[in-house]
């Protein structure tokens, strides 16, 4: 051995990266959270989303304290006092052929019918908040179902490989190829006529379970495929082979090496899938497949406002703007989360 013996002494002193500061290091989670906090657009989006959610959660309070009317019952003959004069909620139409009625427009006062009424005399502002509750609830639940199932399927397929992988991948292909609206329309038509019974669970026609499951299942391939690919590449990663080398069982490797590296990717998907789910939910509700009247969602309010587009455009515009703002903030938040958790990733959902 012709190497100098001085090289054998504590060499950590001469190698870089051994500064004395912060010996207990920041975990990857803390790093991601710190990066996210520095992203102003993402934080602004998070705040806007929080405000929207809070407002929607307070819908019953608004209906009771401010609008003072039940947003789910029709109010064809009523009238309210605005600026000292009494105005009917539904006035005879003065435009066009003069047929039918035109609901009251925005009152300009923080009180009943702030955003006017719809064709059945219901308070649009209150319905908007109630509708947001449904829209957000359906989108969030569908996203959770989608991510949980997709992570399970993608991880199992990538972890075990072989026949299991082939079967699961083909199932994903079928799901991928299935037209979402066709699936939704046929399911809902079946369920309008009879209650679907799955074991002890009964799903009726007005149930929110139907749109939740349809949306949740349809986006599984979007998430499961990249997860499967990531798990497959993790399985040949040297640190996984090293874990095999020290005698770790498959479960141990799955729980300690594979899943902790998959979860950040799943979190990146969360806001992006939720944005997609919002749009699909609105579309399904607009097509009367999702939320059933008199219950509201942003999609059904757009449909309600469709016939009033010329006289009271705000009825359709308000929920449209709500959807647009929510989806936009979710996407901005999604970009921020991706940059924070997975800087090298190129996950983009159209």
């Amino acid at each position, binding site marked *: 051995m*012709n190497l100098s013996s001085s090289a054998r002494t504590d060499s950590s002193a001469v190698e870089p*990266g051994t500064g004395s500061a912060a*010996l207990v290091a920041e975990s990857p989670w803390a790093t991601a959270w710190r990066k996210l906090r520095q992203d102003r657009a993402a934080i602004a989006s998070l705040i806007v989303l929080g405000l929207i959610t809070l407002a929607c959660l307070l819908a019953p309070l608004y209906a009771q304290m401010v609008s003072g009317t039940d947003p789910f019952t029709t109010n064809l003959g009523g009238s309210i006092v605005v600026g000292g004069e009494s105005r009917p909620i539904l006035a005879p139409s003065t435009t066009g052929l003069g047929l039918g009625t035109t609901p009251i427009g925005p009152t300009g006062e923080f009180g009943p019918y702030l955003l006017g009424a719809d064709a059945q005399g219901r308070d649009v502002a209150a319905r908007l908040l109630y509708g947001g509750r449904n829209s957000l609830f359906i989108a969030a639940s569908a996203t959770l179902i989608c991510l949980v199932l997709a992570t399970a399927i993608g991880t199992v397929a990538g972890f075990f490989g072989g026949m299991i992988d082939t079967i699961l991948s083909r199932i994903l292909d079928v799901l991928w190829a299935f037209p979402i609206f066709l699936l939704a329309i046929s399911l809902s038509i079946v369920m309008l006529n009879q209650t679907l019974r799955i074991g002890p669970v009964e799903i009726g026609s007005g149930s929110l379970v139907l749109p939740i499951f349809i949306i949740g299942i349809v986006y599984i391939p979007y998430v499961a495929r990249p997860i499967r690919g990531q798990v497959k590449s993790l399985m040949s990663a040297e640190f996984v082979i090293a874990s*095999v*080398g*020290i005698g770790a069982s498959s479960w141990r490797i799955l729980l300690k090496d594979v899943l902790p*590296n998959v979860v950040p990717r799943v979190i990146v998907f969360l806001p992006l899938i939720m944005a997609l789910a919002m749009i699909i939910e609105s579309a399904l509700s607009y097509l009367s497949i999702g939320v059933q009247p008199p219950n509201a969602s942003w999609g059904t309010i757009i449909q309600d406002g469709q016939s009033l587009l010329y006289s009271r455009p705000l009825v359709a515009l308000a929920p449209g703007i709500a959807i647009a703002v929510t989806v936009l903030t979710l996407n901005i938040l999604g970009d921020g989360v991706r940059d924070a958790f997975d800087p090298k990733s190129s996950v983009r959902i159209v």
Partner: protein
Amino acid sequence: MSDDGVILRAERLERTYSVGRTPFPSRRRKLRAVDGVTLDVREGESLGIVGESGCGKSTLARCLIRLDKVSGGHLSFDGRDIAQASSRNLRPLRRQMQMIFQDPAASLNPRRRVGDLLAEPFRIHTDASEGDIARDVRGLLERVGMRPEHAGRFPHEFSGGQKQRIGIARAIALRPRLVVADEPVSALDVSIQAQVINLLDDLRDEFALTYVFIAHDLAVVRQISDRVAVMYLGEIVEIGPSERIFAAPRHPYSAALRAAVPRTRIDTARPDKGLVEGERPSPLDPPSGCKFRSRCPYAQDRCALHRPTLSGGPIEGVACHYPLGAPTDPRAPAGR
């Protein structure tokens, strides 16, 4: 241990891969990454395996401790046949045979703290309490030249040399008998290489380790190995004491590898210059007979017809029809 002191014995070991995706298995081409390797590793020795990139050294390394499947042949560890053992049956044996990986960054899970990574072998193989494990982990870190406080950090906060020290600490955690080191220093700066090799050398004395040391650099292997096996396209072409192979290689390929070692002095005569011609053939389509013949300056007709076997055996031998320095030295009849 078997009576002759052999801890690991490979006989005609093979690892083949099917290449190409066709629905007909018979039409897939076979890549013989490890093609009939026979070697013995004796307890306490350090066996170096050298060869150029793509010769199957790393595959062989992984096969030897069954981190990869074995396609054919026999492999016994401590007298027990492990060539086809299931991963479940291998698990208890794992504490006796460990691996040090080439890329220290890739072999440490980036999301786990160093202390957690080093505690893992103890958690799997012992019933020790977390307190005892934490103490052992601190001891391990100190033994490989790191500080105990480093246990709380994540792998990315360390330099390449430090990461490799962590990898070494993990490998020796349970006092294994056999350590397979797959190019443990090739990813490191030259200045760090010497420190890590010295560390490996010290640990070998301290824990009575047996090493299988993979490298593409004969100079590195010479420092740490008692014996050297030279690999070419999945086969061992020469095996023997490292000083002898370095001083008087018998296979033309060994001679060529020796010639590739950079020297600090400019020698007036370099008789071994220009020993290898052309490019390494594709392992998918190796030459007939002796695989080295397409690049061997001494190749004869016979080399194309018959594949030479490792004459002399798994302790010291050479797989060449016309080894250098032998009475059948081809340089005389070929007029070179």
